[in-house]
């Protein structure tokens, strides 16, 4: 089990602060939750806690970005995506400013706080914005790599982070699609933390003689379709999994590419249906809304029939 993404991200921010003088960090009164407080402690002059005002925070960051700084704004994913949408669109993205939007407590990971705090539409929103790149890391190591990558970019990057400790995936050199399990019967393209459930599903299926190929795909935009297309050429079946509503997120991004490229295959998706979620312990909550190894295995099995 890895450390939680938020812990890894906070530590990485503080570490990179030493080598990146242009790095400034802003938070909206949740720095002890997002762990940006670690940076604040190390570099108090470059840390700005602006209170519970996400919209203001994003625009302050944008102003700093026009003057050579590379800001990372931290708050809960849902509030960045919804309360600061105008600022992210009209100031950060329209002007293509290098602001890193770090959305903490992504998906259902703020599980006990309930639907008001669960971010199930952020990927669709961020993905629709011109100039924005969207990364949904699968584990802590990917979250750190996402931050390193974002700091090399001249425009905005959205990084969706998870609250809880989740299993580690096979390591990779850079932020990009990783083949976590090889197989020939069905392709499971898994976004974010659903990759670990997909790997478990592959193990379940293997016992039945079905070999699933699991691709962990953190980069939603720009989406590199090649590894998915290559895998589907072999398996002829694709199951997409994501911790997000099935409208407008990762599944939609993959579907768009497949339609455009004229690739036809047996196709299904696991994610949150058109519904609001609720309070509860994280893994049982995910399972109730379809995100579990068992359900992924069921849906992959059905594709293989």
């Amino acid at each position, binding site marked *: 089990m890895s450390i939680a993404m938020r812990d890894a991200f906070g530590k990485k921010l503080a570490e990179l602060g030493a080598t990146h003088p242009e790095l*400034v960090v802003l938070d909206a009164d949740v720095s002890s939750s997002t762990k940006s407080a670690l940076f604040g402690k190390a570099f108090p*002059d*470059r840390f*700005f806690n*602006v*209170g519970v*005002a996400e*919209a*203001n925070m*994003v*625009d*302050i*960051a*944008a*102003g*700093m*970005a*026009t*003057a*050579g*700084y590379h800001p990372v704004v931290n708050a809960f994913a849902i509030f960045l995506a919804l309360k600061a949408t*105008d*600022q992210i669109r*009209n*100031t950060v993205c*329209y*002007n*293509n400013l290098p602001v890193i939007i770090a959305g903490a407590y992504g998906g259902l990971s703020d599980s006990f706080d309930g639907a008001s705090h669960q971010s199930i539409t952020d990927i669709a929103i961020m993905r629709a914005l011109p100039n924005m790149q969207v990364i949904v890391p699968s584990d802590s190591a990917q979250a750190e790599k996402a931050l390193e990558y974002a700091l090399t970019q001249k425009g905005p990057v959205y990084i969706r982070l998870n609250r809880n400790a989740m299993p580690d995936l096979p390591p990779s050199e850079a932020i990009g699609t990783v083949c976590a399990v090889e197989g020939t019967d069905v392709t499971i393209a898994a976004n974010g933390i659903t990759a670990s459930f997909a790997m478990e599903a592959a193990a379940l299926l293997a016992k039945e003689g079905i070999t699933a190929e699991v691709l962990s795909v953190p980069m939603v935009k720009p989406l590199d379709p090649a590894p998915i297309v290559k895998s589907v050429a072999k398996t002829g079946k694709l199951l997409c999994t994501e911790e997000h509503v099935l409208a407008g997120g990762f599944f939609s991004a993959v579907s768009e590419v497949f339609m455009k490229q004229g690739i036809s295959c047996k196709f299904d998706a696991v994610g949150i249906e058109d519904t609001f979620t609720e309070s509860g312990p994280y893994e049982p909550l995910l399972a109730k809304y379809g995100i579990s190894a068992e359900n992924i295995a069921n849906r992959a099995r059905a594709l293989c029939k």
Partner: protein
Amino acid sequence: MSKRIKELLSQPGRTFNADELSALAAYFRIVMFDILHDRGTGHWGGAASSAELTTALYFNRISIDPSNPRWEDRDRVILSKGHASMNLYTILAHRGFFPVEELSSFRKLDSRLQGHPCMNKLPGVDMSTGALGHGLSVGLGMALAARLSKKNWWTYVISGEGCLNEGQSWEAIMSAAKYKSEHFVLMIDYNKVQLDGTEDEIMPLGPLADKLKAFGWNVAPKAFNGHDTKEILDSFAWMDSDDVWPKAVIYDTVKGKGVSFTEGKNTWHGAVIDDASYAKGIEELKSDLSKKEAAL
């Protein structure tokens, strides 16, 4: 363009006095009225309201280099009331950021002069605006960046009532007071008329100075007449008078200033200047310019 105005505009680097600024603003109003009439689109009311403020700021006060628009030590100006874009464009063109002839491309396809200012298209625009209420937050970020870089540039944010209707402005007002951001100035173009009606009908802002003071701002001791360039220069002197930040100045202005039938009328927020209105209005503007040139 008269010989006298031409002469003034041929020396953009120097500091102009109140009478000269007044004549320039009167001339710029004519340019704006012409182009908004020709193009049949744009916002006259708010552009006319801020004409003296922007003229004084760009021709008397701020430190900029039109040959190097992104000069890192320059003073920053954010026109938070981005619908007054024609006013900003007219000033920037005559200040040397781009050819004056380009003003006629306003709102045309492929033009750098977008409906609302775009920083990545047009030199001299420090921040894209249009959606109201962003300017103060972005400006605060610029002011904090100056502090971090140990630089002394000033950041001016020009807001109207519409911006101050937006909740985000008050988030920024709170946070600027927290950080006591040096050289950060809010200039309120307070014409008291919004799109749908007067400020009192739509969203009363008063007592505005008291509100800003209560939020911890250093507010100018009086509201200045935003069409009297002598008073605007007095407000600049007040900005330099102490080191207490952030600073706010309220300018009493008139929406649609300079054309009698557009003054104080919310309907002239974004109305098209038709031929009959143009014929009548341009005479008034020309007469105003003549008076101001005569005073030079």
